[in-house]
């Protein structure tokens, strides 16, 4: 069953939904990366909650006009309109009053959502409202959907993805180099407008699949996860898109295997799993890599200090240093240096003396700031320069 789902063998509708969810996930991941890099992730929460009144109003209007009200493109158009109004209110409040943006976001999301709930109870009292199924838009439901709805979702996902691809250059410039972007004739306001339009498009297409409460997760989680894998702007966007697409695809496929697996939460949980994995194992910024690096630096510092102590003939009391020296065969169990140990100690001492000499020289002393107790002087200076340094050391060379 699971394999069938993952290879899209569960019917035409399920395959269409999975395709749509994948395209949507890629687009959401990429758009979310831009949002995250601009530190505006939570604006999307306001936008998504603000879709509810428009969705409900669109239903009511369509019922009043005589249709059955469940025409998906009509519902999505309504939700886009109210999302736009919510977004405009957030920026109006944070620019025109002294309220901060987070307060504006919270106010818009709760009030629009509350008003949407009022409208939902109105719809339930309409004769046509009993089977409206608008609750499905809260958490996403793709089970038993119409062929036309599945097509709308697949097409919508692909359109959003294409739009994101088309706008990638100005978005990248706006996110990382606003000054350069302005010189190239791209105003920050325009970039923001494009970005928010894309966020809105992702939200609206995602309503039926992920639901308006959780769509924000698809815009935030892949981006945060991708940030662990790279420091480079374009790569973060690509990785985030890949993670988002993977979440959308796996989530939609899994939820097609059982009727009581709601699509939205599954997609979000898959994304969170990818995030947790990234947090742990990503090279560079992941926790394991950081811990490993920390340990390596610690060992090198202890080794260096231990060797210098050996060279000066001082006793070593610190436990970790003693263990490291013994494990590398530099000291005997009783703490006396082996032949290797003596050689390594004298090398360490020579390095240390050269660094000190370097600090005393006039024309090279700024290089001495790179002395962190770990860098070998051979990595900083040429052999000629070292020879000159050694010449100044020669009279006091002593035991080294």
């Amino acid at each position, binding site marked *: 069953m699971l394999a069938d789902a993952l290879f899209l063998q569960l019917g035409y509708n399920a395959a269409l939904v999975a395709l749509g969810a994948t395209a949507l996930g890629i687009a959401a991941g990429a758009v979310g990366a831009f949002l*995250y890099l601009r530190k505006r992730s939570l604006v999307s929460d306001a936008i998504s909650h603000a879709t509810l009144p428009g969705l409900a109003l669109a239903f009511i209007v369509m019922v009043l006009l005589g249709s059955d009200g469940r025409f998906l493109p009509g519902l999505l158009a309504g939700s886009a309109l109210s999302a736009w109004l919510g977004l405009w209110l957030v920026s109006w409040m944070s620019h025109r009053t002294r309220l901060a943006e987070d307060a504006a976001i*919270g106010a818009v999301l709760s*009030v629009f959502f509350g008003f949407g709930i*009022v409208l939902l*109870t*109105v719809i339930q009292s309409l004769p046509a409202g009993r089977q409206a199924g608008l609750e499905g838009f809260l958490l996403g439901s793709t089970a038993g959907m119409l062929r036309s709805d599945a097509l709308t979702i697949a097409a919508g996902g692909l359109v959003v993805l294409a739009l994101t691809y088309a706008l990638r250059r100005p978005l990248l410039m706006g996110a990382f180099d606003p000054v350069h972007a302005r010189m190239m004739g791209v105003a920050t306001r325009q970039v923001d407008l494009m970005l928010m339009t894309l966020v809105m498009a992702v939200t609206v297409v995602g309503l039926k699949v992920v639901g308006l409460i959780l769509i924000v997760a698809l815009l*935030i*989680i892949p981006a*945060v996860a991708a940030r662990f894998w790279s420091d480079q702007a374009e790569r973060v966007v690509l990785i985030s898109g890949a993670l988002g697409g993977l979440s959308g695809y796996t989530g939609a496929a899994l939820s097609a295997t059982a009727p009581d697996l709601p699509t939205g939460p599954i997609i979000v949980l898959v994304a969170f799993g990818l995030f947790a994995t990234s947090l742990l194992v990503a090279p560079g*910024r992941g926790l394991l890599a950081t811990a490993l690096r920390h340990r390596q630096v610690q060992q090198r510092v202890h080794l260096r200090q231990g060797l210098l102590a050996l060279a000066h003939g001082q006793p070593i009391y610190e436990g970790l240093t003693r263990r490291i020296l013994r494990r590398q065969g530099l000291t005997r169990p009783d703490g006396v240096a082996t032949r290797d140990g003596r050689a390594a100690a004298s090398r360490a001492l020579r390095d240390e003396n050269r660094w000190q000499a370097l600090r005393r020289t006039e024309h090279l002393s700024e290089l001495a700031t790179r002395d962190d107790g770990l860098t070998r002087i051979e990595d900083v200076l040429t052999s000629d320069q070292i020879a000159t340094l050694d010449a100044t050391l020669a009279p006091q060379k002593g035991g080294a």
Partner: protein
Amino acid sequence: MGFEFVALSLPPLVIGVLAAMACALPGNFLLLRRQALIGDAISHVVLPGIVVAFLITGLVAAVPMMLGAAAAALAAVVLIEAIRRLGNVEPGAAMGVVFTAMFAGGVLLLEQSDTSGVHLDVEHALYGNLESLIWLDATGWASLTDPQALAALPPELPRMALAFLVVAIVTALFWRPLKLSTFDEGFARSLGLPTGLIGLGIVVMAALAAVAAFDAVGSIIVIAMFICPPAAARLMTNRLEHQVAWSLVFATLSAVLGYVLAGYGPLWIGAATSVSAAGMIATVSGLLLAAACLWAPHRTA
């Protein structure tokens, strides 16, 4: 009229007002500390908390559920902080990661477990059921002095009253440190105040209010009341004392007007049924905030 009002409308009205005030009070500090969205996060993670509590105990009882909700809120705060620090992730995004994932987990657990026949579903969690909190033993205004009838009050009422009292008393007791650390954290720290602990205390107060209110009125009012009344109050005055007072006034107004409009508004325009009181209370609080944004004396800095 007297009987109907006391039995059907008075308890939900009082519960609504208490819930609104209990949330608005800590909301003032969250707003000023730029943590307004913590309320949003807390009210989302309450759902997995009560679902897990239900799965463990098998009971739909207030105490285990509130404990579960409180534990979930605490876990969320810890997780957000951990992700923020360990991964060097921006706070808003860390919050977004945690509360959406926990909410998704709660929904999934709920759908997977057999809760049919049990009064527990996502819709209930979102918009509560204020209208159903009626007082069947009331016979009229005289019941307010009748101990036997009072004993049959909906249990949400004393619980909500207690939560509001706790929040109010703690706020009053720690007023000076709260004010100092909110406006000038550096100065407060130099006076030796434990600012980190105070910050955590505010979040705990918010969680207490959210968990208590959630049970009675659903999370949508909780989020709205954390933000809208304090935000409107912030535009009315520059003094914290006045801001808190205004926020309580706005919270009360929202709850009363919202409840009345939801219950009787549709009847006035000829519709047969009432609409969601929770949604209407949130809507009214938004309208009040909109009015404050347009006309309040201190709307710009």
